[in-house]
């Protein structure tokens, strides 16, 4: 069964410092991979996604993620964190298109706190 692990429940980063949020997945083939962000009291918003091709994908708000097949990882990075980035971040995995209806499985989330 497909699963997603986000090993860090909380991460605190100083404003202006770099950020890396970890995500590992378990899936029989190369899945589609996603990062979503949830601000307090809001729904989830897509940051970026990986389907195929270049393993380094760029997203919104200055985020990027790198797919590493050998490590079954899809870590999210940002070179310089802003206070407004404080939120909950979710990694998700889903089947490739045309292999069935898309059911995303989410990780348990990582809460990012940004200190001044």
């Amino acid at each position: 069964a497909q699963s997603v692990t986000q090993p860090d429940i909380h991460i605190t980063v100083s404003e202006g410092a770099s950020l890396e949020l970890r995500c590992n997945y378990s899936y029989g083939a190369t899945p589609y991979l996603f990062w979503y962000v949830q601000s307090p009291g809001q729904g989830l918003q897509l940051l970026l996604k990986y389907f195929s091709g270049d393993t380094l994908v760029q997203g919104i708000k200055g985020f990027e993620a790198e797919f590493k097949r050998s490590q079954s990882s899809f870590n999210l990075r940002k070179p310089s964190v802003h206070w407004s980035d404080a939120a909950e971040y979710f990694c998700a995995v889903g089947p490739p298109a045309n292999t069935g209806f898309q059911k995303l499985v989410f990780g348990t989330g990582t809460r990012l706190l940004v200190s001044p």
Partner: protein
Amino acid sequence: DTAVSQTPKYLVTQMGNDKSIKCEQNLGHDTMYWYKQDSKKFLKIMFSYNNKELIINETVPNRFSPKSPDKAHLNLHINSLELGDSAVYFCASSQDTAGGGGELFFGEGSRLTVL
């Protein structure tokens, strides 16, 4: 104009009551979902409809009954509410045609508190 809208945003009710949450999307998507987010922020899919047809029905008590009158609307009715039903319920939609890429568009959530 909100893409995926849910009502109500907050719902406080007593155990044993019946309640409904409504969802509408104006994105023209074919597929809609209900997700449950528990107190630990864990998100789990409950149901999914594609063009008004139920396609995903996870292990959910049959007190939960989704209804999709058309592909732009997906409602969730919950009978005989229990304390453990307290959660945030998210509606989402996606376009499952080629190129849709599985991106989900979420509503802002409906926080249900059962007393």
